């Protein structure tokens, strides 16, 4: 009978410890996988140099992180959501509904999105128009809207190499895809005149409906295998390019900088992506990176404010800090962010 007794008592003790609510003393962070490496670098340095435990950082994607942030206030909800795109009104509404009324928005810097191919392949220099004509489901040819007939990059533009079109682009759940849609496809669609042709060809009821249909067509990609959505992360894209030397993939600048011995980067609109060209705003495909802090947790979770201040300090997010070394493009307005963090200014309504 002894083992039975032992098991029962252990069970009882287990149930009791589980029932006691614990005060959480570590910071919990979740969100964008693009911001994740930066957050881990800061968390690691924070744990080393402060008397607080190292924050726990999770990935999961920008949208998922913001949703978790908005689950409510309390120790079993996260403190910070990392995000590679700006918070949406729907998130703010969800937050307000769950009692999370004050959110601090902290912009940590910029990330460039680069187009890269196998190191041994030919050189590329793109424009948004070329990307649109290569990947869109329907393009304008000789004044008429037709299904995309382009097979090689040379079909798109004679200046490009005669290499089959094959692009690995991030899946729709990624923040990177939003930037690609907005800064490349939409720009290319308008720049090549396809947008106007779509509006003209639309059968919508009024002007608004026609514009909406055209905008939707701008982002519709061909489905014949030339454009492949990658739902995993950049390591998957890199592995696919390794297996398919003809392909062109989309990466974050920091990922490219860590794999310059395998990848060759392409210029966009004549600008080669680098920390300098992104910081100056010359390189067109870049985006700000954010994290969002639940203000109600400041002062409750130990070290939360110290962590945020440490994150945006010049030692970390500055142009010579470890984040810049890893590929983050430092924010020229970092001083304003530091002041806002020090004053714990919550974000206002979205413009």
């Amino acid at each position, binding site marked *: 009978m002894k083992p039975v007794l032992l098991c029962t008592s252990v*069970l009882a003790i287990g149930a009791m410890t589980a029932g006691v609510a614990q005060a959480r003393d570590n910071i919990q962070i979740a969100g964008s996988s693009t911001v994740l*490496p930066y957050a881990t670098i800061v968390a690691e340095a924070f744990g*080393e140099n402060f008397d607080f435990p190292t924050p726990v950082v999770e990935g999961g994607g920008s949208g998922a992180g913001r949703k978790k942030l908005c689950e409510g206030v309390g120790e*079993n909800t*996260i403190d910070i959501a990392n995000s590679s795109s700006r918070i949406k009104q729907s998130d703010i509404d969800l937050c307000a509904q769950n009692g999370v009324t004050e959110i601090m928005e902290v912009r940590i810097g910029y990330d460039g999105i680069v187009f890269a191919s196998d190191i041994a392949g030919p050189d590329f220099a793109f424009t948004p128009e070329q990307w649109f004509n290569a990947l869109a489901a329907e393009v304008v040819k000789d004044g008429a809207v037709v299904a995309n007939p382009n097979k090689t990059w040379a079909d798109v533009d004679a200046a490009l190499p005669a290499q089959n079109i094959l692009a690995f682009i991030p899946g729709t759940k990624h923040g990177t895809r939003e930037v690609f849609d907005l800064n490349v496809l939409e720009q290319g669609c308008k720049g090549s005149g396809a947008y106007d042709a779509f509006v003209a060809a639309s059968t919508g009821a009024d002007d608004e409906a026609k514009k909406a249909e055209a905008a939707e067509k701008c982002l519709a990609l061909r489905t014949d295998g030339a454009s492949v959505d990658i739902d995993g992360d950049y390591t998957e894209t890199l592995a696919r390019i390794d297996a398919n030397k003809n392909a062109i993939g989309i990466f974050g600048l920091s990922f490219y900088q*860590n794999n310059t011995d395998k990848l060759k980067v392409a210029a966009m609109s004549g600008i080669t992506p680098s920390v300098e060209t992104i910081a100056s705003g010359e390189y067109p495909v870049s985006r700000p990176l954010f994290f969002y802090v639940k203000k109600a947790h400041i002062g409750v979770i130990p070290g939360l404010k110290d962590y945020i201040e440490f994150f945006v300090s010049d030692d970390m997010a500055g142009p010579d800090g470890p984040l810049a070394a890893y590929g983050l493009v430092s924010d020229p307005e970092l001083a304003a962010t530091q002041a806002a963090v020090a004053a714990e200014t919550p974000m206002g309504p979205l413009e």
Partner: protein
Amino acid sequence: MTDLSAGLPHAPRSLFEADARTRRRNAAEARFRFYGMAAVAVGILALVFLLVSILGNGLSSFRQTGIELQVTLDAAVLDKAGNRNPEDMKKVTTVGYGKIIGAALVEGLAGAGIDTSALTTKQVSALLSDEAPRRLRDMVLADPSLVGQTVPFRALASGRVDGFLKGRVTMESARLDSNVSPEQLEVVQAMKDHGMLSLAFNPSFFTNADASELRPESAGLGVAMLGSLYMMIIVLVLSLPIGVAASIYLEELAPQNRWTDIIEVNIANLAAVPAIVYGILALALFINFMGLPQSAPVVGGLVLTLMTLPTIIIATRAALKAVPPSIRDAALGVGASRMQTIFHHVLPLAMPGILTGTILGLARALGESAPLLLIGMVAFVKDYPSAPPQGFMEPASALPVQVYQWTQRADPAFVERASGAIIVLLVFLIAMNATAILLRRRFERRW
């Protein structure tokens, strides 16, 4: 039987001379044998390919490059107050210690007569891991009397330098690599020739926690192994008594009716439910409803318990069923109660089978990562959880989760780490399965 009479040859023939039909049948048999062998060969090939690729990638993670240095711990920098009080000395961050180690390296290179004129001081310091200052700082804070002395210190080399010694980074790749230059590698080669730098067994792979992308060389499995251990303790403590109690009731005491049938069918079904489903259940029940902390081994252990229970119940019931009824009849016949019969006779005889099933269930739980995705265990956890029971509630990682995370990192040095972690995980699984087989061999009884 009709075939037999129809197929009989009319003329008698020698048995030593196969006729066409016999030859056909023999050929069919030979083909069938070949198919079987081919199937086995495919399986073996897959296993060999897996092992070769994992061992080839991962064995190098058990060795790590270190740089032998003589570090002068300058009291004027590290202890401005001059009272050797760790509280005051904490003000010096890892940046300050980094400068001291960098200076020690420059000095060491000069002492060995290695030409570093092609490199800037920053490039020389870049040969060292970012982890080195933290280790030195911990060492000094633990023993403040070291300040003012010159101490020997083995600093980890950076990931690219380590890759160079392991053959992953070459002069050609360095030319294209933005993180390391051929000039740096020439200095590394000279250091190696002078014996300043060497590959050695890497205990920190087992003791360190995860590390950020800037320092893959210091990433280790410590927190993941401890987290997995904590979860296995919880799984064992909860699932064994619950599973055995449920099986004894169902097998020995429950009446045979529609209800017990339904329960039986559902247990069999639960054993086949995909693991991620348990993760969703855990998120809703343990975290959102019961308010247990995220990323904690207690939640992971509870999910894995739910997942392992059906396996254990099925194994235990099979073990109980294998005990012959004559044992029960004899016990009852000499006046034992139902409970005495079960605990004195049936259960001890069924124990080897139960333990085997439990160990196999634990092995499956150890390798599972899907249910942990949703409860916040797929996270960057740097601090060790404290001792149980408090540690059960503190964030931890797990072995399969660590593998998953390392495969997603951008730095190629993490590929080696991921394969190394897979080797460790496989060793644990093989050990558990071997224990199960040994137990069965040693204690199994046949009637």
